[in-house]
């Protein structure tokens, strides 16, 4: 009963957010909608017992990635002045008819394919009772510390690479005097 409600709410939030990201013409708003969508995904995780993932989704996306994106939007001039000093469109258009047409085409093609792949699953709906959710954190921790220890360690190296690389790329440099 409540499970279904939670699922419905999360799904609605996810899909609504995602559609709004597509629909929105304002980058900042799109970012907020993305936050909503990711929040919904966290709810969906919670529905099938991935409680740790749900929390991770909250911490990393809501607290991290979205803030990072909001910052990046501000650093690239927000959504204000549309034209830069070269006369170029500074904050680029959020798309026009042509691009939407291309995107629609790509989406249709992709959806055909995906539907073909998942058709068998959709046709055969197992209606068994779902098992209760287990405690995942300890199991995840055990997996991370034993079976996936290499991935665990390497992810730290990857994060280090991302940190150093992004810091180098985005570090303010002195402008050349021309």
């Amino acid at each position: 009963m409540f499970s279904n409600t939670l699922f419905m709410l999360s799904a609605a939030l996810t899909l609504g957010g995602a559609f709004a990201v597509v629909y929105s013409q304002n980058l900042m708003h799109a970012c907020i909608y993305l936050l909503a969508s990711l929040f919904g995904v966290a709810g969906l995780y919670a529905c099938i017992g991935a409680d740790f993932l749900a929390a991770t989704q909250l911490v990393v996306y809501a607290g991290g990635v979205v803030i990072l994106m909001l910052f990046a939007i501000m650093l690239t001039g927000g959504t204000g002045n549309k034209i830069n000093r070269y006369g170029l469109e500074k904050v680029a258009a959020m798309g026009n008819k042509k691009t939407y047409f291309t995107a629609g085409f790509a989406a249709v093609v992709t959806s055909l394919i995906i539907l073909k792949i998942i058709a068998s699953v959709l046709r055969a709906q197992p209606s068994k009772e779902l098992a209760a959710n287990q405690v995942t954190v300890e199991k995840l921790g055990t997996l991370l510390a034993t079976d996936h220890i290499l991935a665990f360690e390497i992810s730290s190296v990857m994060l280090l690479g991302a940190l150093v690389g992004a810091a180098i790329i985005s570090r303010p440099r002195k402008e050349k005097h021309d």
Partner: protein
Amino acid sequence: MDYTLSTVAPVVLLPFFAFVINAFIVKKFTKLAVAVSTGAIFVSFLYALRIFLDFLNVYSVGYNIHKTFTWFDLSTGSSIFKVNMGIYIDNMTSVMLLMVTGAATIIHIFSTWYMHDDPRFGRFFVYLSLFTSAMLGLVLSDNLLSVFIFWELMGFCSYSLIGFYYEKEGAGNASLKAFMTTRVGDVFFLLGILALWSVVGNVSFVDIYNAIGAGKFNNLYALGIPLATFAGFSIFMGTMGKSAQVPLQVWLPDAMWGPTPCSALIHAATMVAAGVYLSLRMYPLMELGHLLPFIAIIGAITAFGAATIALVQTDIKAVLAYSTISQLGYMVIGIGVGSYNASFMHLITHAVFKACLFLSAGSVIHSIHCQEMPQMGGLRKKLPYTFFAMLLCCFAIAGVPFFSGFVSKDRILGDALVMALAHPVYIPVALLGFAGAFLTAFYMFRMLFLTFFGEPRDHHIYEHAHHEHLGWNSNIPLLILSVFTLGLFYSGSFTGQGEVNLFGTKNEWFSTLIHRPDSNSLHHFAEYKSEEFGLVDTRDKVELPRAHFDESHGMSEKEAHHVHQIHKAGALASIFIAFMGIFLAYSMYVKRSIYPGWWTSTFSGWTRALKNKYYFDDLYVKKIIQGLLLPFNNLLAWFDMGIYDKYAVDGWEAVNRFAFNVSRWFDNNIIDSGMVDGTGASVNLMNAILRWIQSGKIQLYFVVLIVVLASYIWTIHI
């Protein structure tokens, strides 16, 4: 003793950690980095020594330590896909470990002197550490996959070391050449691994032996040839690349562009040894694939050909480089004629004396800042310790009795002789082998005499050569290495022929402990079970019956006696040949000025012929030799230039030229006459389409990607 991960791993991990640490600190704390590298390899050497002594203490043919762990396991249900990694230490590995760490330690110490005024002093040690740890990892590996990983790591290190002086164009080219040439072998090696995997389902040495013993390779064919032959050949191609066998030998002489200690490491202890080591490990496969004659012939051609080239070199390092190729040829001959133990012994002895030779050459070069032998001469007064070390090493490599080279090389040659008498295919092998031995003795002593004897030919250089003092890091390493050129350490007897046993039979540890895994005893490996790390080692679990590994196994008393007789004859012949070579060299480069009367009276028939040389100085002598050997030399040069340059480079150019001609004809006759406009339009059209596709717009690429992927998925049945 009980081996665990913590007692074995430091051997590899210490140099590796030294590499990791030094990679960070090398810029600021060069001295510290050098100390870390040297200290690490020295401690590693102590570990290896302990392992070696332990094995010597057990003194059992079958004693080994094999520990594995599962790297990853992708098995699902019935299909097993599991990759194990692990270490495998048997007698051979323990000897290799000792040799590699020992030589590397000596070379590290020597490098602290040789490289100390180099601007990239520290970086050199960083590479050395990685290189050594890669080699040690290769030696400890229990399966081909990790061998391949370390193999490639070494390839990279040699690339870095050869191109160490990357400002010099030649060094850059040489490093590229080394990298590319070995790559050819590596591709085949990988193919061989895959072929073995397809049969064995695993690439651990022991499992491969088991599969061979169980006859799993019977009636299996790849590309129409027996799979064992295919796999064996592919793996041997890897050896050819790494150990510089004809026709992949071209990279090794260029490898001398690197600093001399690194040449010592590449030529002696690590890189080239890896190839031979691999072939030795895969010996049962080679035997099963009937590849031995082929291997022997390749080895013989290499041994002789390289020796002839070495005759005409004037660069001291080039002589050594070609002699390395030649000696590697002997090791490969050893594999080919089934002289497993002697081949491995030659690997070890060669590592020692060649390391010493290179270090001595480095010492000379560093002292006089010149590599050309015609400009040297008379240096033995200035560099007495170097001279002493080099003399012993030259004795060793030439095969003078009581020295290590004699023990190992003559066993190989003796076995070659036995095989030649048994089968005519091996006759050229034996002939070329003996001829190569003669040339070896000759050119090595030619180098020695030109460098150290006679009068200084370039007084400017001679005057500027600083007098040598017994420095702890410049000369002690040489002297240590030169002591180990004595055959005593390897055979326990002076001659190595089992005739003079100084300490009794038990001390012939080398020929007792190292034995080839015979095909007819391989099934004993089937009882073997690999152990996970942390459990007890497999001591005595694989205790193979001594008889199965006896040299005389399957031979009657009479046959054994016969073989022994042939060995004896071969030994005598090679002693004679060695002295002949030395004698010839001596007569050409030193003799006349010292004992001319003795010469004329003893060899009166030869006097007139030799007299001509009295009035030639070294340059002319060289010209004569070059003139005599020019055809052969040209043949080898033709290999180098004619094959590689002509067919790879010029051939491609010819193809291009041909295509160009065709298209010009096409252009002139068809396009220009009337089709210009139409073609132009079509080209424009194509251009437009291509330009539209190649727009640099990532999103368009993405859409195209989706469509292509979609069409692909749509066609497959799900």
